């Protein structure tokens, strides 16, 4: 039984198949990368995993249990957290309150929620801005807030959707460090990324898709050398 498995996922929007038969398995403790050109179906796959879309067909299994028909909040309680490609800060709440709201998914009193929230904020390096309104944060801060919030829900599996986009080189280094730290703490990670440098560096294995279908899977080196992948990307970005 795989730790996490996506089995022949298909999603149609009207007549268009956004995802058309994607399957992969992720082992516990892995950092698993998902790459593909724009519009290839990566975020739709994430949305199906986290319950925002129902698959047209196919299954998602987490620790042997089918989760693709569960509502999103149940999936969170089962231990799967996610960040959003277009960040969704709870704008008029402070960073601390954002994370407290997340922490409430695991504890029930304000005191404990605050404690948990501060721990997550410390871990992710947002302590200096904890009393700032979320909408006042620059993009790097907002992306980090997405991760911090997700971490406060104590996920066993974390879905990161393009957390590195829009960051400058030093911010990128910090982001990579944080992701490594998260994995070291025992969380399995599936990461969607466009910035090749990031995903090639930190992933244990990579799955490449195009037009909703798998085109390659393997170690970063293997995938980078794959003919179909190179064609799909026309060789951009590899640092």
């Amino acid at each position, binding site marked *: 039984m795989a730790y996490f498995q996506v089995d022949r996922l298909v999603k149609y929007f009207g007549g268009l198949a956004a995802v058309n038969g994607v399957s992969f398995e992720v082992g516990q403790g892995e950092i698993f990368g998902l790459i593909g050109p724009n519009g290839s179906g990566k975020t739709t796959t994430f949305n199906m995993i986290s319950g925002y879309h129902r698959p047209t067909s196919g299954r998602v299994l987490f620790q042997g249990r089918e989760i693709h028909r569960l509502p*999103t909040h149940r999936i*969170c309680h089962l231990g799967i957290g996610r960040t959003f490609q277009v960040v969704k800060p709870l704008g008029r709440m402070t960073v601390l309150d954002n994370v407290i709201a*997340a922490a409430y998914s695991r504890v029930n009193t304000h005191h404990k929620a605050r404690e948990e929230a501060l721990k997550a904020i410390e871990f992710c390096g947002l302590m200096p801005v904890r009393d700032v309104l979320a909408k006042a944060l620059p993009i790097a801060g907002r992306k980090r807030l997405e991760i911090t*919030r997700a971490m406060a829900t104590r996920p066993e599996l974390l879905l990161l959707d393009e957390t590195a986009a829009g960051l400058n080189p030093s911010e990128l280094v910090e982001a990579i460090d944080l992701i490594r730290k998260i994995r070291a703490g025992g969380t399995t990670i599936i990461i969607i990324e466009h910035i090749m440098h990031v995903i090639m560096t930190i992933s244990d294995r990579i799955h490449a898709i195009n037009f909703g279908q798998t085109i390659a899977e393997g170690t970063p080196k293997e995938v980078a050398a794959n003919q179909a992948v190179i064609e799909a990307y026309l060789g951009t970005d590899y640092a």
Partner: protein
Amino acid sequence: MKKKLIPLAVLAVVAGLPLVMRDNYYLHLMILFLMWVVIGSAWNLIAGYTGQVSFGDAAFFGCGAYTAGLLATHLGVSTWWGLALGGFTAIAVGLPFGWICFRMRGAYFALATLALNEVLRHGATIAESFTGGMVGILIMPSFTSKAPYYYIALAMAVASLASLQLVVRSKPGYYFVSIREDQDAAESLGINTHFYKMLSLAYAAFWTGMAGALYMNYMGFIDPHVVFNLHDISIMAILVGIVGGVGTVYGPAVGAFVMVAIQEMFRSGFFGLFKWLGAVSGSDSLVRVAAVLTQAHVLGFGILVVVVILFLPNGIVGDWPKIRKRVFRLDVGA
């Protein structure tokens, strides 16, 4: 510390009022004000905190009022039982109401609540054998003096504000605001948004229903047009919230005071000021202005809505820094 004393000081003043003021007219206005504090706070929770702007609060108000009234006419029981039960009937009506309306978001939700409000109003009119139809319900008021009603209303207002304070700081409070800010993000954080939206609706329905029951007991007369009224109840509730400041605990209280005052000001031509001025100065035109103002109170409301939305979108409490700057020329230093 100072900030916390203000509400307590106000409470002391309000509590002591009936002892010093004998004029029934002003006591009446205060009772209305207290009732609107309850309704406004309730609306504030579902709209200001949870972000679901309901245009149908009259539905809950009417339910509570009719519960109280029907208990008397059909079961011969005192209408005061309506206070206890009115909240619960309102919830019973509110839950399916919410289940239907929450399927939609944003402005469609608002429209659906409006439609449902109207359905209830027409329903109450049509179901003549049950509700008395357009004739309405008339009961004998329990007390001759206003003081008992005043203190009951005061107790309700204080209770509603206190409970709002409690809710806002609790887990549901955080969840409500999260839903308002971003429903999808909230879901990803493990929040059962559907459940919590219903919860906030139940809270709003309960308090508004109780206010309706109070109204039945106090005024002694209701009919579908009065209690299910879109403009006088639903929209008034929204105005109370918006003028005072949504998303703040005391906003609606401020809003209730301002709205009741303004409403009465128009209705009475600035409390009879113009009439008196006219009589004193013998000026005919001043008397006519008084008459005009009385007629124009709804117009005044309409203009108020437009002006408040344009210039004070976050209400008096919400935009207080802005007001301080402009009106009092005090720079808060942003």
